[in-house]
Each structure stands twice: as structure tokens, then as C-alpha cells.
């Protein structure tokens, strides 16, 4: 075997200046995003598995439990549950982020990136961009299935697009939670245990049941859950039934569907970046 390395590239001239740095931060981010998108293309089954839970839930709640669910006078449970399902899928998405981060960390890929002259921010920003793109694909598939089973957004195109934007905003905010947890997790098994945290986070909310029907303390918790804010805001934008408890938080779902994700990002983005930088400690 010949190991000749002809036309050996020499280290490039200094790419320091602020302009070059920004250019490479974006270019490296895009390289990482392309890697993640290639994963999606090569493993369509992965997308199918990750969508399996919400899709099965859609079918169960519409066809199995739906007839027994009474969320309000003359309200179709399908129209109530579907936007909730979208919000829940976005909320659970942080586990996919955490798993991807822990797999790269375990396999040494993160260390390889860190020992390369690339912009180190790209490891985190690339993850963020590709997870949002992945989430958009998830939403498209779910919306298509929802339309097939008879769900309809009744308020027109632009409110519907705004609703999808709010859903992606929630997913975006939770990316940093996922990155942080992925960096903290010891291995894939412990990252898998995050479902124990994610499940109540997704369920103790207005996703399947109006909080007003829950015991008081639990209902309050559910109302203030960021997932509920997004679920209720998108119900409003889709023209679907919104649970009316009359509380302040429920009256201001649209506002909170923006405030909550921004607050989560403000807290967890710096924590995730700090944790990433501290890998060298």
C-alpha cells in the first residue's frame, strides 16, 4: 500500500481577521448541517421512528380514545388534539438533540472537531440549524397525516404559517436544553432515560386535556407549561378550539408562546455553550 500524500496542502494563510472568522463560522456551520441532512437522507427509517410516537398518538386519540374525550360543548376532539400533538412533538424533540450530541461525544467525533482548526461554534450552531430543519420536516409529515384524518386549519394560510413558526420557535428553544443534557449525559443509555423527564413535561400540559379539567394544582402547573402556551397559541392561529379557563396565562397564550421560548433560549443557550467550552477542563 502506498501512503504517498501528493499535492500536500499547506496550512492556509492566517484566517484570523473578524470578517474571515465570521465567514468560516457560517461555512463550517453549513458543513455540519450538510452532514446531518445526509444522515436524514440515508436513514429515512430514523425519521419514521422519531415520528412513530406522535403518529400513533394521533391515530389512538382520534380513533380510539377520541369518542370518549369531552373537552367542551360541540368541540371536535380531533381539532383540539391535533395542534397539541404538534406542540408535544416539538417538545419531545430535545431528546433527539440530546441523543445526537451524546452519540458524537461518545464516538469521539466531537473531540475530532475540537482538535481541528474549524470554528468551534459550528459544532453547536450546526446542530441547531439542522435540528430546526429536521423539525420542519417532522411538522410537514404530521400536518399531512392530520389533514388526511380530517383536521383543518380554519383561519387561512398566514395564521397557519405563523402557527408553524411558533412551533419551530419552541423546538429551537429546546435545542439548547438538548445540547446541554447531551453534553452532561454519560452515555446513550443515560440520554435515553431523559424520556422520564420529557414525558411529564409533554403530558402535564394542555396537549390532550384542558388544564381546567385537572385537579387545581396540576392544572396550574399544566397551564404554565411552555408547551401549553405554544399549543394554545397555535390552536388560536389554526382556528381550532382553545381551552378557555379564563386565567391570565391562558388569555395570553400567543404572547407566552413567544416569551417562553425566548426565556428558555436566554437561559440554556449560554449554559450549553459554557458546557461545550468546558469540555477542555
Amino acid at each position, binding site marked *: 500500500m502506498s501512503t504517498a500524500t501528493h499535492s*500536500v*496542502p*499547506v496550512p*492556509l494563510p492566517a484566517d484570523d481577521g473578524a470578517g474571515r472568522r465570521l465567514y468560516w463560522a457560517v461555512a463550517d456551520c453549513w458543513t455540519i448541517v450538510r452532514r446531518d441532512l*445526509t444522515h436524514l437522507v440515508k436513514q429515512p427509517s430514523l425519521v419514521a421512528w422519531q415520528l412513530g410516537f406522535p403518529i400513533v398518538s394521533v391515530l389512538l386519540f382520534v380513533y380510539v380514545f377520541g369518542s370518549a374525550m369531552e373537552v367542551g360543548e360541540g368541540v371536535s376532539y380531533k381539532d383540539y388534539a391535533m395542534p397539541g400533538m404538534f406542540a408535544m412533538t416539538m417538545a419531545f424533540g430535545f431528546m433527539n438533540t440530546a441523543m445526537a450530541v451524546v452519540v458524537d461525544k461518545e464516538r469521539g467525533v466531537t473531540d475530532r472537531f475540537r482538535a*481541528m482548526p474549524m470554528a468551534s461554534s*459550528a459544532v453547536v450552531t450546526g446542530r441547531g440549524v439542522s435540528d430546526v430543519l429536521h423539525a420542519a420536516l417532522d411538522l410537514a409529515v404530521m400536518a399531512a397525516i392530520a389533514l388526511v384524518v380530517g383536521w383543518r386549519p380554519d383561519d387561512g394560510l398566514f395564521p397557519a404559517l405563523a402557527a408553524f413558526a411558533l412551533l419551530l420557535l419552541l423546538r429551537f428553544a429546546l435545542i439548547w436544553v438538548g445540547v446541554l443534557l447531551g453534553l452532561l449525559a454519560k452515555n446513550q443509555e443515560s440520554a435515553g432515560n431523559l424520556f422520564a423527564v420529557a414525558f411529564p413535561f409533554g403530558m402535564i400540559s394542555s396537549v390532550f386535556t384542558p388544564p381546567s379539567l385537572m385537579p387545581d394544582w396540576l392544572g396550574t402547573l399544566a397551564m404554565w407549561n411552555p408547551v401549553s402556551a405554544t399549543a394554545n397559541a397555535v390552536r388560536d392561529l389554526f382556528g381550532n378550539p382553545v381551552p378557555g379557563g379564563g386565567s391570565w396565562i391562558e388569555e395570553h397564550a400567543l404572547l407566552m408562546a413567544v416569551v417562553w421560548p425566548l426565556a428558555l433560549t436566554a437561559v440554556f443557550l449560554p449554559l450549553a455553550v459554557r458546557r461545550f467550552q468546558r469540555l*477542555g477542563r
Partner: protein
Amino acid sequence: MKPPPPTTPAAASSSYAVVAEGLRKTYGGGRGAPATHALDGLDLAVPRGTVYGLLGPNGAGKTTAVRVLTTLTRADAGHATVAGYDVGRRPRDVRRRIGLTGQHTAVDGILTARQNLRMFGRLFHLDPAHARRRADELLEAFGLAHAADQQPQHFSGGMRRRLDLASSMILAPEVLFLDEPTTGLDPRGRSEVWETVRGLTAQGTTVVLTTHYLDEADKLSDRIVVVDHGRNITEDTPAGLKRAIGGDRVEVVAAEARDLPAVRAAVARVAGSGTAPSTDEATLRVHAPVAEGVPALTDVARHLQDAGVAVADLGLRRPTLDEVFLTLTGAGTDVPQPATEAAA
């Protein structure tokens, strides 16, 4: 205060590719947990163009040393330059001049081999056309051209490790760090990797190799530093290390127990001055250090023949690096084979 980092071209072209002085790194120690001194004052000086083996048991600090030198971990104290740049202050300059193949085969299992190398090329900031060309060159050079469009998750261990090595060679690094490059490989995979590393060193790449396989350090390294408890114990060439523990020994295995006295007498006649043969009654083994191995071997054969003694085996033993290592780290006895100490 610390001396200023050598960043001038003169420093970069000094005769050492890696210099480390007094590296210290402690993990844990908080909340009553015992602190682990992964590095406890490690010094290294790796001449350019050599293969430098870091040899030590698991937990000796080899991997921490590589992590510090490749900018992945910050040392608590001490100072290190790689390719002329300070690892703490100029990590980006260091990263552009090194390659790292860690204990994990850190390639993407789902991207094809070609896609992996193109991605790494882009991340080393080659333009797209150059990254494509470089990927093809490396696939050819590392004997992976036939598998270029397959996913590494279906590769053999040796192939995956070769792709990993190729990924470390995008910019033809001045210093290549190999952290236990053959751990977990079958014998065929190991020899594939060894051959690849020899090919790289023939082109003048400086290699820092960590291993706990002594035969690997012996076969590949120009110099070996023995590391234990985060400190260097000794440093020498593989041959020098073996000499340091003692020279050749003649060893004779008697055919029957009643021949042992005659065998002892024959071995005693060739033994170095002032040394008596050691005898192991259980295995019928008699051995003694000798000044010059080959003449002693022919002499002892003649003495045995003159005495009319048939033997089961006759040979010359050189200490293995295992023995050197056990001796130096104090983990073993100071006689090569504990069993041979039984009777003298």
C-alpha cells in the same frame, strides 16, 4: 512569569516538534473525592521526524498527555509547544498543524468514506474543489479507493481505522498524534495500521504514539518514554531500554531432572564474571547472564556435548519490553521471569 510563547518562524523550525515541560493535570478532588493526578510533572521532547512512543499502563496519563498536546484539554500547570506554537495560547495555530487519531474511530459511520474526507477537508478550510481532490488522493493513498462510496459502519476495524488516519492527514500534519491506534483491532487490522504508520513516517511526519502494547512501541518507535502515574520514568531507544535492564541470557532446558547439575556446570562456564546460573527445578530451566550472546551459545552447546548431556531446549533470551516495563515501573520483580527465581 512564564516565558513568552515561541511563535517566530525560528522557533517553529527548531529541532523539536513537541516540547512539554512540567505538565500537570488533576481531575476530581472536590467534595471529598480523591483527586487523580493524571499528569504529575510530565516532560517531553520529541525530535522532528521521529516516532515517539509513550508507553505506560492504563491510567498512566498517556491519553491526558495527548489531549493536552492536541488542545482538547487545558493543563493545570506546565507549558507545551507543538510545531512551535504554545498549545494553551495559540490553539488554532496548533490545530492547523496536527492530526489526531484518538482511541475511538471518530469518523461518521453513515456518511460514505469519500463524504467523510470531503467534510473534514472543508472543516480544515480547503475550498470545495480542493477538498474533493484531497479526499480522492487520501482514499487512494490509504488503500480505501475500492470502498470510497461505502459507509464506514460496514467497514472492518482496520479499514475504519485507516479512514480515521486519512482524516487526520488532510493538511499533511507536522505532528500526528496516535492514541492507542490499534486498540480493539484484530491482528490483521493491527498490521494494516502499522504499515500505514510506517509509510507516513517514511515521509518525515513526526508521530507521537501512545500504546500499552509493548510490541507496538518496540516495532514502531524510534524513542520510547515510559510513563507511569503521570510522570516520565525513563526515555531511550527500544534497544537501549532493553540493554538497560540487562543483556542477553543463555537459557538451557534440561531433558531430565538428573541432568540438572551437569547443565548447571556447562552454563556456569559461560556465565559472565561473578554471576551464577539460576535454576528452576520445576521447569528444569537453567539460565545465566552472558557478556556476548552468540559465542556463549555455541560454547555452552559444546560443553554440553562434551559432557554427553542431551537437552530439551537451548536458547538466547533478550529481555522483552514487557520485562523492561515491569522493572521500570516497579510493578513486577526485577528478574525477568518470576518463576526462575525459585532456586539459584
